[in-house]
């Protein structure tokens, strides 16, 4: 609550500075150069690049899992995810992201495409970090709103306000077979 309140206050503060610098630029020639500089550069500086780390298998290349340069840890070892979260946090990334699938891929025998459930992983990553954001995929198709609101709400409490939900409104046909359907 306090954090939200002060952010709002700062928003007002920022707007005030903006308004003032524009005003001074008009009214006081001596200051005009400096504030002109502000007007030109604050807009570019304002716009800061956002970086998210998408964690997938031992890397996004489909053969990464068997390359000698990738992590020696098992993909079911929580330390692998916690370690990546810490590295990304150290590099000042805004967030980490875990995608999801609700069915085993057809290529499971030759691809490292089986993984831990994202919300659970992020709960463990949250307690291993303190600043970085964390994004998990969950489906509106195969969740009840009450369960989903509760899971992500809990994750937000556990991480102290660092959580995002990647909304997937639809899913692979194969997943339907795991939820009482015949697959589409």
């Amino acid at each position, binding site marked *: 609550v306090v954090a939200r309140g002060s952010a709002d206050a700062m928003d007002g503060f920022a707007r005030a500075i903006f308004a003032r610098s524009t005003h001074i630029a008009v009214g006081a020639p001596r200051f005009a150069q400096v504030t002109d500089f502000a007007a030109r550069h604050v807009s570019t500086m304002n716009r800061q690049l956002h970086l*998210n780390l998408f*964690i997938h298998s031992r890397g996004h290349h489909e053969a990464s899992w068997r390359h000698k340069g990738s992590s020696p840890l098992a993909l079911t070892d929580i330390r692998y995810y916690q370690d990546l979260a810490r590295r*990304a946090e150290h*590099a000042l990334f805004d967030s980490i992201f875990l995608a999801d699938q609700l069915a085993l891929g057809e290529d499971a025998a030759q691809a490292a495409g089986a993984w831990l459930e994202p919300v659970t992983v992020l709960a463990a990553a949250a307690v291993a970090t303190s*600043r970085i954001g964390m*994004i998990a995929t969950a489906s509106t198709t195969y969740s009840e*709103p009450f369960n989903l609101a509760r899971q992500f709400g809990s994750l937000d409490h556990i991480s102290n306000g660092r959580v995002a939900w990647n909304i997937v409104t*639809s899913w692979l046909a194969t997943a339907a077979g795991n939820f009482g359907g015949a697959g589409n």
Partner: protein
Amino acid sequence: VEHRHVVAGNGGRQLRRRRQLSHADRYACAEEFMMVVKALWDSWADDAVTDDRASGQYARADRIRPINHKGRCNQVTGPLNMPRCPQGRPVLVQAGSSDTGRRFAARHAEAVFTAHMDKASARAFYVTLKALAAAEGRSPDKVIILPGLSPMVASTEVEARRLARELNELSAPEVGRKRLSGRFGGHDFSRLPLDRPLGSVEAARSRTEVILSLVRREKPTLRQLLASLAGARGHFTVAGTPQQIADLIEDWFTDGGADGFNIMPPLLPAMLDVFSAEVVPLLRQRGLFHLLCGQDPARTLRARLAGQRLECIAAFASFGRGGCRSGDAKKLRRSRTRQFFLHLQLCNF
């Protein structure tokens, strides 16, 4: 990010009923789902919990309310059985590239993941989504667009390419063929020779446009096509020096193609480490990434996505007052922009 093919609706017992719905109705259900989830997150007021041991009051009943939702797709009484979370509502992210997906993102998402193999298509997506957000009455800069980027970074371009080739040679062609077939509505690619340039390919879905335009543009062999998809499943892959990667990021960022990137290292943790150690400092030097504010204090993800500017402006306010150290003269470049950036670093905001 690649699994959005079939249905939109809901889960559990209600799922079976909803499966009978038409396509348009399923999206209406997704909208209803969002409404319910948001209402549940809002069902506890910020000050509902008093946790007062002396009086015996844990929470104020009048600050917790049921939602009593009775819709076509969901019936939820509420309230949530949990106090309001620190962000109020968790940040909402979406990865939608279909028409419906874009409209959904424009209505709800605060950040969007997207896949583009060239800047032109990234720019087109960027412009469209920002316009859709504005049409929904939202501020376009409250929707952050993050294209996927899978960078293979090495000290020379030759070495980066060698690494990429090394990984491609570890890929099993059958795996790539199966995956490609999935994207093209089950089309059988098994008879297609690996090493002859591809002619025309017919696709079933808009999502495959990315691949089609690549085939038209570069006329690869099947082996080459599979290699370029093996990198990051249709996201933008690039192999080069830190300088080249930083140039590319700066170009997309300043030319209206991205607000940032969804970094997809081809090899973990190695390529994340190289990116962080070699590319990130270049981005900072150029004033594109956290130049300003030194150490980032703990705060919510939403504040982080929206609020970095605040510290920058606060830092700006002290610029020119002669505060902080004046800096190492050798480090100072001539341009005022550089001086200002350096000022920020020295002042350690």
